[in-house]
């Protein structure tokens, strides 16, 4: 179930009402059932996978805690990590890594395993990377002695499956989320109001801005060669905002939905486009993933305490993993690695040389945003060929792209009026200019303005601070934007596929 689907808006109030109608002792059981329903609504097999991951990690963590010797602690921790990663690999990366191998062929021609190959190839289990990472962090935290293991496997299942953050995060830590899930809580009007504000604002960002931008960007990426160079720049720019508003919108929706149950999820974004460097950017963008990588990969391989070379290795390893985490495609690896290289550039070169010049803050922010926009070409492209094609379009200073395109003779048969005449049009190809409707620009502008205005607080408290009339005008405006101008094509959340 997606947050931008009508089913969710029926599901959420029903779950909420029943949650507070039953005795507080068994509320968490209801929340668990609702979470599995939420996930299994899309495909029941996926709920089974999550169940296996949860039980495996719960058991492993228990054994980690119970083991007296470090070697057994280590064994059980690695057992959990490797089984989690194995499941992740089978359903997300197998087709990418071995799709054309004999092994894949024989698995696909065996009826008992063919469904796995089909799922991995066409329908990766939603959010598998998110809940796998969340579950791994629990086992490692128990190993490190930072957390006590949960005794009840069913309760642990709720930690992994809690529906607001299940399919696209934030990736919460056990210590923070688990405690809130089982605390005694009575519904509070203030939480309800704030949750509602976050839900509405998140939906506005996703449905009115990101989904509409997606339509424009998709038009370009479906056939880039048909478009002019300026269109390529526009598509790159709009995609940057599409990803941002899509994921930021999702995170707000997740926070809003959780708040209705009295659970405060962490902030996943903190104005990333005011970052002056790539390292700062990653402190502000998808914070739950960045901190996960920091705690479970970067620091264990040496962090920034063991010299520049070790740091560079750690950074590249993190960004390589991050790229791979984002998707089973070589374009994602390029995306991750290019961000890693730019991170090192900012950290070692820009900081020590150019930063000494009095370059304005605005220029630095622009540079960081520009770096991100450029690497997102990899993120959005279907293949390396497509991304290199788009890069060559973007830097088409001599107009080579326009020239090549105009030399392409095309033949089109006019089938519009069936058979009136068979008309063949021969002529130079005319490059199209990408354009967006006025309403899309307006919503984007309002998105910027709100981002700017809500600079120092969170959206819910900012809206709450507005005078009543202005606040309601804002609510109704967002409601109108969602209901009347929401993107028509179903674009699942960009991060949903991870």
């Amino acid at each position: 179930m997606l947050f931008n689907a009508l089913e969710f808006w029926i599901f959420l109030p029903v779950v909420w009402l029943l949650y507070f109608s039953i005795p507080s002792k068994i509320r968490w059981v209801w929340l668990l059932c609702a979470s599995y329903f939420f996930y299994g609504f899309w495909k029941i097999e996926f709920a089974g996978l999550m169940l296996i991951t949860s039980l495996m990690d719960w058991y492993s963590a228990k054994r980690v805690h119970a083991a007296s010797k470090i070697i057994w602690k280590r064994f059980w921790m690695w057992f959990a990590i490797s089984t989690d990663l194995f499941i992740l690999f089978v359903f997300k990366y197998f087709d990418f890594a071995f799709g054309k191998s004999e092994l894949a062929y024989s698995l696909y021609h065996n009826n008992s395993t063919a469904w796995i190959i089909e799922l991995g190839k066409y329908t990766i289990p939603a959010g598998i990377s998110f809940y796998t990472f969340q579950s791994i962090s629990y086992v490692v935290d128990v190993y490190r002695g930072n957390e006590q293991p949960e005794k009840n496997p069913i309760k642990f299942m709720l930690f992994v499956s809690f529906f607001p953050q299940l399919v696209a995060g934030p990736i919460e830590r056990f210590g923070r989320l688990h405690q809130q899930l089982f605390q005694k809580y009575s519904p509070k009007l203030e939480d309800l109001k704030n949750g509602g504000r976050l839900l509405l604002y998140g939906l506005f960002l996703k449905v009115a801005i990101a989904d509409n931008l997606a339509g424009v960007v998709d038009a370009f990426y479906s056939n880039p060669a048909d478009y002019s160079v300026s269109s390529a720049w526009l598509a790159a720019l709009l995609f940057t905002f599409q990803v941002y508003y899509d994921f930021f919108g999702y995170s707000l929706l997740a926070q809003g939905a959780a708040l209705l149950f009295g659970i405060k999820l962490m902030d996943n974004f903190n104005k990333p486009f005011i970052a002056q460097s790539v390292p700062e950017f990653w402190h502000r963008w998808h914070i739950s993933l960045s901190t996960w990588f920091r705690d479970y990969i970067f620091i264990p391989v040496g962090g920034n305490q063991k010299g520049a070379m070790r740091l560079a290795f750690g950074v590249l390893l993190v960004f390589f993993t991050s790229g791979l985490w984002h998707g089973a495609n070589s374009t994602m690896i390029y995306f991750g690695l290019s961000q890693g290289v730019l991170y090192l550039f900012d950290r070692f070169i820009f900081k020590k040389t150019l930063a000494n010049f009095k370059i304005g803050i605005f220029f630095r922010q622009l540079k960081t945003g520009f770096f991100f926009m450029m690497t997102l070409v990899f993120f959005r492209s279907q293949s390396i060929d497509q991304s290199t094609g788009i890069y060559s379009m973007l830097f088409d200073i001599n107009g080579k792209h326009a020239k090549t395109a105009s030399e392409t003779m095309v033949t089109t048969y006019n089938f519009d009026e069936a058979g009136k005449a068979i008309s063949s049009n021969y002529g130079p190809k005319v490059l199209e200019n990408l354009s967006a409707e006025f309403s899309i620009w307006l919503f984007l502008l309002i998105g910027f303005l709100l981002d700017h205005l809500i600079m120092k607080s969170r959206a819910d408290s900012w809206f709450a601070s507005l005078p009543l009339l202005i606040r309601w005008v804002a609510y109704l405006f967002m409601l109108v934007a969602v209901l009347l101008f929401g993107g028509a094509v179903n674009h699942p959340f960009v991060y949903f596929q991870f």
Partner: protein
Amino acid sequence: MSRNNEILNILKWFGSRLIIIAAFLFLLNFIYSRYFFDADIQKFSRVKPNIEDAFKNAEIVYLGESSNTSFNPWTDTLSQSISDFIQLYLPDSSIKAITHEGYHPGLFRQMLNLIPEDPSARKVNTIILGVNMRTCGPSAIHSGNEASNQREALFYSHRPPLLSRIFMGLHFYDSRGESERTRMKFQWWRTQPINKESFSNLKYNTAFEWITDLDKLYGDSIPEEIKHMASAYVKEFAFILNDDNERVRDLKSIVDLCNEKNIKLLFHILPPNRFHASMLFSHYEGELMIMDTTLTQIMDYNYEFLKAKFKNWGVPFVDNYRLKSAEGENKGGRFTDQWYPTEHYDAIIRRDIAETIAAELLGVKLDSSEFISRHNKVNHILKQNNFPNWEIQMPLSFDKLHQWSRALPTN
């Protein structure tokens, strides 16, 4: 006590907001209907006004997919669609067609919602619905266009316009993406049995087994085009119809809706390219080419199934499944797509189909004097309007198939 107070506060707060929002939505529906709805219809459901117009102003409405309007760019100097031809045979009736590539009974069923309830507000009394076999198969059911088709169909209803817009924005329709649909197609080919005891020579249990075996069957000497074509024929036609089939259920719903609205319904079964379907799996014994009927047996089974259903439902139908001009003597040459299985025909087949439908509507036989007289009149009109040279044929895949088939292994 304080918990109860808080709950009471929440309920009060909710109540007042709900009233404001309900009133706002009511107003919004008015504004949307007045200022935005038409633009959205133009953008997302362009055919809707034509459907409404057809039901209001035409006595006969023809519902079909691309087979109605497709034509042969090589030879057709006549552009008339099947429905246009029917109109020529029935000049006293007003006929309008709703046709579009990829339309299917599931969409037609939803279009029927737009027939005005009040009989005085509509002129339509007969609906003709073209049925092709492929539409019931996995490729059509799980087509990549289906999400946009279903989005379009959201507007084929009399619900408040704002509700349709909300359903679209919040994807309250079958909006599954292309990737998921591809997976479902493969799952169908892999798991749905195609074998029946009555089929002779069929050694495969599923379409997937058959497709996989094509490489072995053809070896390396057969060009890729032929393999692709054979694979496409298996994918499109190797399935077994039953009552659970989505399209069969849709057809039944259409029958029920037409009965409910007291509208005459006429199905007509479109001819598939049976010649290519057997030619692709043929082999030679000496100089004699032996046509393989394995796939056509499945096609025939499905045809018989549909025919039995139509009879069972009490719906009249025109049976063009084995229309003479579409059969083998023309080597599949009157099908305009020579390298892919479609029901796209040249003018001769279109005209022949139209004749059978017109005769059924008139309640006469094709060889009756009344119909022959109409036929002659139509031919006269066509002659005045650049009557085609029926002898012209486009380049046929048969000629190449014929040559390549010799390389096929003998059984």
